[in-house]
């Protein structure tokens, strides 16, 4: 495989792992964050504090825990998921869900404060409230998702452990950079780094353009 083909392969794999993790994490985090904003229950403040605290989880620790879970000698060993991109996706979902949930919760809370009286007056159900908030607050939710993306695309500790950085199987941009840095090939590592930054900028720009379109009322 030529260098270009290899670069293409690991870049696509990076995107595949991170975007899949982002999708799954958002599906969990956004309704969760919104629900926490509208529903009052006894341990609500505790749950919110836990989620905020989980944002500070060191990714390497998450990687270790996921490794122990997925190891053949571990509880989920039968699934044979270790050292595959799927394991990497699992680890990244665990890492970024609290981030997205926390930011989503923050903006949903503000929006709920704004809409509160009106939605109660209109006799909306809990579910209708959540859907309305998510719909009207979608720009801020996109920002939350972007934050999750940023965390995931640059992550290396967890996916190194659970993915194994296996050539042609689980090697992505960040783990490749770590490998080349360790070998002392700084030039290649920097090059890969620029590709990573480039991808990140592209994704951010794409999201930014989408939200700006919405502001003109075309959504």
């Amino acid at each position, binding site marked *: 495989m030529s260098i270009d083909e290899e670069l293409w392969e690991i870049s696509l794999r990076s995107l595949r792992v991170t975007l899949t993790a982002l999708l799954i994490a958002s599906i969990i985090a956004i309704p969760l964050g919104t629900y926490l904003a509208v529903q009052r229950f006894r341990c609500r403040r505790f749950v919110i504090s836990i989620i905020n605290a989980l944002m500070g989880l060191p990714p390497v620790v998450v990687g270790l825990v996921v490794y122990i879970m997925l190891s053949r000698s571990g509880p989920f060993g039968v699934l044979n998921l270790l050292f595959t991109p799927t394991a990497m996706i699992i680890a990244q979902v665990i890492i970024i869900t609290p981030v997205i949930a926390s930011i989503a919760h923050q903006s949903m809370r503000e929006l709920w404060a704004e*809409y509160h*009286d009106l939605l*109660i*007056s209109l006799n909306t159900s809990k579910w209708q409230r959540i859907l309305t908030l998510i719909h*009207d*607050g979608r720009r801020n939710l996109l920002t939350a998702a972007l934050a999750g993306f940023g965390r995931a695309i640059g992550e290396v500790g967890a996916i190194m452990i659970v993915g194994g950085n296996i050539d042609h199987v689980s090697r992505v941009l960040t783990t490749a950079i770590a490998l080349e840095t360790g070998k002392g090939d700084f030039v290649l590592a920097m090059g890969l780094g620029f590709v990573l930054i480039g991808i990140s900028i592209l994704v951010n720009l794409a999201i930014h353009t989408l939200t700006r379109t919405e502001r003109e*009322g075309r959504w």
Partner: protein
Amino acid sequence: MTAAFPLILSGVQVRRQGKTVLGPVDLTLSANGTTIIVGPNGSGKTTLLRVMHGIERIRVGGVVWENDDPAKHAFVFQTPIMLRRTVAENLAYPLMLLKTPKDQIDLAVDHWLGRIGLDSSRGGQATRLSGGERQKLAIARALIRKPDVLFLDEPSANLDGHATREIEALLHEVANAGTRLVMATHDMGQARRLANDVVFLLNGRVHEYGPVEPLFTTPSTLELMAFLRGDIVS
């Protein structure tokens, strides 16, 4: 369509942070017309309205509707709450909640946009409207589900004369068409213009309640007399 009345409040009290904000209040509202609630700032007008609508938690006492169907009330807040959507979408929202078919929604939205004169702004963001336009939109949105009762909390408090006139005209039409209005206001002239009967609230208690003209020309309490004179009453 006012089978929901009479509305009976008995011994209603609302407390906030240890202070009694409203009550005890005993009040029976009849089936027809427009009731205006007046009183100085902090007398509990907003709280009373919210209690009647059912969005305020009552500590003591009860609110009894003859035939309560919460979907048949609507509320217009002092500062209109605009959804972060277009004008037309704001209007359509209450109907969407009821899963009304789309063509019916479009008809209703077109009708009301014309009536409040916002047809040209239908595709713009509601948050970009002026204060008067927002309030008109809020009233139209409240009326789009054809409620039996419309509660309004000082709807023209922050508006200029022109906008106030437009709103009063709209409310006049609406009242004539049979909708029961219960409205708080600061503007004594407005009260006189629109009311059938008036509630005078002071320090969270009903001081006087009765048909508009006798109340204004011959108030029975000293406080109301002072209030009508323009004194600060507390």
